[in-house]
């Protein structure tokens, strides 16, 4: 990996549960994030996938300092930003920006698009002198594929996809090096999702951005990510390159997750092995001992209740090498191929230069 721009270790966020009004005492904690480690290289995309409640959005909020971690560190170019405050924190924040999920609630309806995108300059006036701001905002609108003439319009005059472009333009305003995107396309219609993903791809190479891309859609995450981390109940249970995770998953949770994704190929339904997990995700206030996945795992044994599996390359894979040798937090990690080939999508379709070639214009 290239030199890490962001290095997260032992990241924890617990929300205390209290009882009583006057004498509040802590009776427990929601362990939303419970020990997360990862590194993000310059210009790289790390995808984080997981189901609702796994803590992926809390990780995002801590990365941009909207939440203070309970423990652990987030190093930006070697400096732990969780210990910074005041001016030093402000300087770092400029370089780590966020794009939110819901383009309907994350834009102030009473501000014009120009004011929304230009607002970061009020906080960081050193980036753009006052007289130059309108020009910069127009430029940003153009960069994200919106007409610069729209600068005086309000958010309600735009569609969902266009609003997400506005959110991205705001994220880019300060020329950050890292963008944390929390479910940036999941509120959009299928035909508009591809436009926004292509835009993010293009911006990444244009501005050398590093992305932390958080989503529950496994196909989209594979498309955009260089490396992928799979989260379950506050921890990363498996991490590796996209090929390692999708073609050679070794953690049972990843395997179940991948096998459950409906793929757009009716042929797949006959020859596909589905791993249907029983039960629901346990509550983060009451995390199982040992391996947190064991209550839903078909391989669980007595050892899984006793010992917490470390996120590391399992010894038996390390010796052999190859794509199965990547970090997996399972005592009984085994390789299993679960993603069906979408054969009918091979061939000329989607690869030509004709009307169905890649790209397609912005909205």
């Amino acid at each position, binding site marked *: 990996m290239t030199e890490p721009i962001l290095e997260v270790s032992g990241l924890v966020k617990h929300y205390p549960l209290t009882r009583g009004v006057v004498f509040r005492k802590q009776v427990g904690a929601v362990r939303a994030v419970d020990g997360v480690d990862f590194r993000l290289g310059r210009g790289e995309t790390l995808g984080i996938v997981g*189901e*609702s409640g796994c803590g992926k959005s809390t990780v995002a909020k801590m990365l941009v300092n909207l939440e203070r971690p309970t423990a652990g560190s987030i190093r930006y170019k070697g400096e732990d930003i969780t210990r910074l405050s005041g001016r030093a924190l402000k300087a770092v924040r400029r370089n780590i920006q966020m794009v939110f999920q819901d383009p309907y609630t994350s834009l102030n309806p009473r501000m014009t698009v120009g004011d929304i995108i230009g607002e970061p300059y009020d906080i960081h006036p050193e980036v753009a002198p006052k007289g130059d701001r309108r020009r910069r905002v127009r430029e940003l609108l153009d960069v994200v594929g919106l007409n610069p003439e729209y600068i005086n319009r309000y958010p309600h005059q735009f*569609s969902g*996809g266009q609003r997400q472009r506005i959110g991205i333009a705001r994220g880019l305003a300060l020329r950050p090096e890292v963008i944390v995107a929390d479910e940036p396309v999941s509120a959009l*219609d*299928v*035909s*508009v*999702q*591809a*436009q926004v*993903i*292509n835009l993010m*791809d293009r911006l990444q190479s244009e501005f050398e951005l590093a992305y932390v891309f958080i989503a*529950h859609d*496994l*196909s*989209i995450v*594979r*498309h955009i990510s260089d490396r992928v981390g799979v989260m379950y109940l506050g921890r990363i249970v498996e991490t590796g390159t*996209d*090929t390692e995770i*999708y073609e050679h998953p070794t953690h049972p949770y990843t395997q*179940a*997750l*991948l096998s*459950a*994704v*409906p*793929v*757009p*190929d*009716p*042929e*797949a*339904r006959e020859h596909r092995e*589905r791993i*249907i*997990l029983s039960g*629901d995700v346990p509550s983060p206030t009451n995390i199982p001992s040992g391996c947190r996945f064991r209550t839903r795992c078909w391989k669980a044994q007595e050892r899984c209740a006793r010992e917490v599996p470390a996120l590391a390359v399992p010894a038996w894979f390390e010796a052999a090498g190859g794509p199965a040798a990547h970090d997996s937090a399972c005592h009984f990690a085994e390789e299993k191929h679960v*993603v*069906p*080939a*979408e054969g*009918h*999508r091979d061939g*000329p*379709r*989607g690869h*030509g230069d*004709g*009307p*169905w*070639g*890649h*790209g*397609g*214009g*912005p*909205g």
Partner: protein
Amino acid sequence: MLLEVRDLHVEFHTRDGVAKAVNGVSYGVDAGETLAVLGESGSGKSVTAQAVMGILDIPPGRITGGEVVFQGRDLLRLKEDERRRVRGAGMAMIFQDALSSLNPVLSVGDQLGEMFTVHRGMSRKDARAKAVELMDRVRIPAARERVKQYPHQFSGGMRQRIMIAMALALEPALIIADEPTTALDVTVQAQVMELLAELQREYRMGLILITHDLGVVADVADRIAVMYAGRIVESAPVHDIYKAPAHPYTRGLLESIPRLDQKGQELYAIKGLPPNLMSIPPGCAFHPRCPLARDVCRTDEPPLYEVSPTRGSACHFWRECMDD
């Protein structure tokens, strides 16, 4: 045919004008068959279902034409009390958001039991026993204890099972499921879809599955109807459509979703936005976004051409779409 919708038209009258939500939709479902109605927001897929079910808000909605023939009777001509008897016993609906579709101040047992006290005139005690039986059938663990609990005490997946149980209660001939798994996580979605498919086989029900997810459709549907701007633009058996879509919109959708089995390059993106239903483009409604559009598309609305005896496409150039 269990249900046949013929040339249905629905409009909404608003202060800003008339929104033409459904513009001549026809489809049919047989007993034991699953029809997927695929479309994006604003395509008219849910409005059509609401008109079939008889739960459209009128006004502002208005059914301006068409027939909904269910078991030989045109439902649009029935009186409201006759219609009510069809709902529940003849056809039932499952909604996307189980939490807001269930009553938060009644126990799930009371809500399930209500189906039997109201429609079948059962005593409360018998209805309660029926509720437990239904919860067992949709595999909610410890049904006897949980029947007394309230909706907020169940997880999202379990709530959706309760919705399914409620829809199944009177053993209807047809179930309409509107985005039944969209709010659920992928592992739970798999559990719920499998349950629904199994129960459908067991009872030989017709199922209309309304969704925007091409993956879910490929998993469960027999036939598929693709909607755009209030019309069906393509209708086909499920295997045919994925192999060779005959409408540029369907094809665009299929090309634009990233693959799980390999890392692609840049995605194909359908340009532009879905139309405003108050001013649908003349000719073919898809022409401003279509890579195959020519002059005729801007003036002549394409009929549903017969691609094969079981397939139709509302594109003047469907051959071209399938060929290259």
